[in-house]
């Protein structure tokens, strides 16, 4: 590029004559950064909407109750499965770093291997998310329209047992505390076989008798929309990683002699997906 440099009257390099890269970054990399900035604003908009809706209702389901199942029929394992998912995503980010490093060393085989590892990580994450969604929709009946995760506003005692039947004589009543979250279950009707919600009757500390209330509807919609949007980013990342990996294997980027810049660009995108997950994890599962 030094040969193309045009000097102006004062003998300085003319920035307007072309052949100069702004911010010493290639066009593609710079535009990837600005795309990621705009995408960050999209995600931030969703997460701020989550916060605004959460602040606008009296109660919100506790994440350590809602997300406490683990494959293999394990319950009461709060946040463990999502921690595993987080580790998978961190691992795939690390293998992506390796792929970019091998690209700088012009090592084609290394790039392909570490990109393949990254794709495996991305697919594992998607598999975990598919399980999580299946469990929430199929077993726990949460959808974008209904949220069976309600939260107690006061201490109190249940008047029915877990199946919604009044306690038998001598059976000890179950008590609950304010701010604890419960799941309203669907139970099959004896005669018709049709599944119906069982909202247990309860007596609150102030003496009122009521039934379990459904949780804020927005919870389900926000959860599926935001984690779904992130999952879609992971999915499209996997698609692009696959295409670029095949191009690497075919020797396309080796010909360009730019240290596999395309791998670097998809690397930026992939790290961004991990970055977004840091905040989705914080907002949905930790806070």
């Amino acid at each position, binding site marked *: 590029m030094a040969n193309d440099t045009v000097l102006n009257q004062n003998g300085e390099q003319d920035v307007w004559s072309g052949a100069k890269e702004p911010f010493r970054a290639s066009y593609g990399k710079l535009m990837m950064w600005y795309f990621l900035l705009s995408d960050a604003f999209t995600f931030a908009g969703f997460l701020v909407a989550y916060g605004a809706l959460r602040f606008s209702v009296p109660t919100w389901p506790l*994440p350590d109750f809602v997300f406490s199942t683990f494959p293999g029929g394990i319950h009461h394992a709060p946040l463990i499965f999502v921690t595993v998912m987080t580790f998978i995503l961190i691992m795939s980010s690390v293998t992506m770093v390796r792929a970019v490093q091998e690209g700088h060393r012009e090592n084609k085989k290394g790039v392909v291997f570490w990109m393949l590892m990254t794709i495996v990580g991305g697919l594992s994450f998607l598999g975990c998310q598919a399980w999580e969604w299946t469990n929430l929709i199929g077993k726990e009946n949460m959808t974008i329209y209904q949220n069976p995760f309600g939260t107690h506003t006061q201490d109190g005692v249940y008047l029915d047992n877990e199946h919604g039947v009044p306690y038998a004589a001598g059976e000890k009543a179950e008590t609950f505390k304010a701010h604890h979250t419960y799941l309203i279950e669907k139970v099959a009707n004896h005669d018709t076989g049709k599944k119906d919600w069982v909202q247990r009757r309860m007596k609150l500390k102030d003496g009122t008798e009521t039934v379990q209330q459904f949780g804020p509807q927005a919870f389900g919609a926000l959860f599926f929309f935001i984690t779904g949007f992130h999952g879609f980013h992971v999915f499209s990342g996997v698609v692009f990683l696959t295409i670029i990996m095949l191009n690497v294997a075919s020797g396309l980027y080796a010909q360009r002699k730019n240290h596999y810049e395309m791998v670097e660009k998809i690397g930026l995108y992939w790290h961004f997906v991990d970055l977004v997950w840091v905040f989705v994890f914080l907002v949905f599962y930790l806070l």
Partner: protein
Amino acid sequence: MAELDIEAGKKVVIKGLILLGVVTLVEVFIALFGNGHVIDGFHLPKWLMYPMMIGLSLYKAYFIIFEFMHMKYEVKGLRASVLLPTILLIWAMLALLNEGSAWGNSNAKINKWNTAEPGKKATAPPTKEMK
């Protein structure tokens, strides 16, 4: 960016893996410990838990952007043009979270009026009960 030799490269990778992994574990531990899952009935106050978890997440974000995405090797102008606009999000958060709770308070007020007994004036408007 300077050429990385293979050993230095591996060092960055191992450091990143351990750091992100440990910080995530600490975050999950704070969540479980603070919500009474480690010692039965022991809870940490939210004002203590939340800033810690938010701080650790911001640290993870910093590490991913500066180390993994190589932002620390980019020139100042690029860094500023990508990072500074995110300051606007602080305002979005303050404004909309405040809006959300104002919305909740006015809902609670209207509910109170709607359920007031006929002929009796509802007493002082209740504020939303915060947990």
